[in-house]
């Protein structure tokens, strides 16, 4: 029965992907992509990666979808049917892509058996962190450097997005304002965020011992913030505001500071003393959750569109 379920999921994922590739209308493709993200979240649970399933449902199905939908609405007025690639070129591209896919498929089939794994190593080191969720332990203890660098990438991407604003708008507020806000949406924006914030705090809190954690919690918070901004209950903040920038870099800075403290306290960069490893990790996670929420939300909001007020 589970085999049938897996086969069906794979078939639907591929069908949706083909639909995205073939359909003419961009909006239709984006809606299909949101569906694809939600379905892929289901697929990840079949691979026993609940942490990834949560992230995929939140980012793939939710926040990316909103980003693309807003872009589509922005680009719609000038929809020009650009000259598409010639028929021969398309065939050639299809053959090349099929070959790449086939090569990758062969690699999947030729995975060594027994599979190499770091799971035992992660398991033996887990007690020293005081955490119960191995994925959180990998993200914030064994491979903390990766996570730290990823935060830097996020901030860099945000700086990249901001710097696309014309010079005189630098430091101003991004504009998420739609022309019309339907009444039910305003209602949703008032009722959903309390729920969402509760779910985000819960996600963050169980992350130490069960699937969940900073990314999932942060994404939920970002989505709720976006909903409030989209429904015009709160304006988007000016990007030059000090508080905004402090929240953005607060998480990575705390992470880095504790990382350097590791030299003094545990003999290495990003090493935690065993006795207080868990409180340290949870503290870093709390600050990171807020930073991630702010960064993701502002990434979707885009570059500044109104001049900064004097």
């Amino acid at each position, binding site marked *: 029965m589970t085999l049938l379920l897996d086969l069906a999921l794979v078939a639907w994922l591929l069908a949706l992907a083909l639909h995205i590739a073939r359909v003419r209308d961009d909006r239709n493709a984006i809606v299909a992509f949101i569906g694809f993200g939600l379905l892929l979240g289901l697929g990840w649970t079949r691979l026993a990666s609940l942490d990834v399933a949560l992230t995929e449902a939140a980012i793939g199905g939710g926040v990316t979808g909103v980003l693309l939908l807003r872009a589509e609405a922005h680009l719609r007025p000038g929809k020009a049917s650009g000259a598409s690639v010639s028929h021969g070129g398309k065939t050639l591209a299809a053959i090349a892509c099929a070959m790449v896919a086939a090569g990758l498929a062969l690699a999947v089939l030729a995975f060594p058996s027994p599979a190499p794994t770091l799971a035992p190593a992660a398991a033996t080191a887990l007690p020293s962190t005081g955490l119960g969720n191995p994925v959180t332990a990998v993200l914030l203890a064994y491979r903390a450097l990766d996570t730290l660098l990823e935060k830097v990438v996020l901030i860099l991407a945000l700086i990249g997005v901001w710097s696309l604003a014309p010079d005189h708008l630098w430091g101003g507020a991004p504009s998420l304002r739609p022309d019309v806000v*339907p*009444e*039910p*949406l305003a*209602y*949703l924006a008032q*009722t*959903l965020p309390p*729920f969402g914030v509760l779910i985000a705090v819960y996600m963050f809190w169980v992350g130490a011992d069960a699937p969940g954690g900073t990314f999932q919690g942060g994404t939920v918070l970002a989505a709720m913030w976006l909903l409030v901004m989209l429904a015009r209950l709160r304006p988007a903040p000016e990007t030059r505001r000090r508080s905004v920038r402090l929240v953005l870099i607060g998480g990575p800075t705390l992470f880095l500071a504790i990382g350097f403290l590791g030299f003094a306290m545990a003999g290495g960069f990003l090493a935690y003393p065993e006795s207080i490893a868990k409180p340290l990790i949870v503290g870093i996670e709390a600050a990171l959750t807020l930073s991630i929420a702010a960064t993701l939300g502002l990434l979707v909001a885009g570059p500044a569109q109104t001049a900064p007020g004097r």
Partner: protein
Amino acid sequence: MAPADAFTLLFVTAGAILFLAGTLGLLRFPDTLSRLHALSKADNLGLGLIVIGLLPQCDSVTAGLKLVCVWLLAQLSAATASQLIAGAVYRRKSGP
């Protein structure tokens, strides 16, 4: 079969049938509004029945509470989404 399992089976089956009904409505009904009606009613009731059916299988009160939360969230989002879609349909019909 334990009574709890029989209860689960009954409600899950009913829920699955409602999902089928919702999709049939979606495939067969002629216009947007009645399709919307079929979808929002049947799917939410279906999810509700499945949640009720799974409650006896929960091993803790928190797990049961979370199940109910999923359903509440579905209620909220379905109600709003239906309103939004219906509003869009209405605007397109009457025109600005």
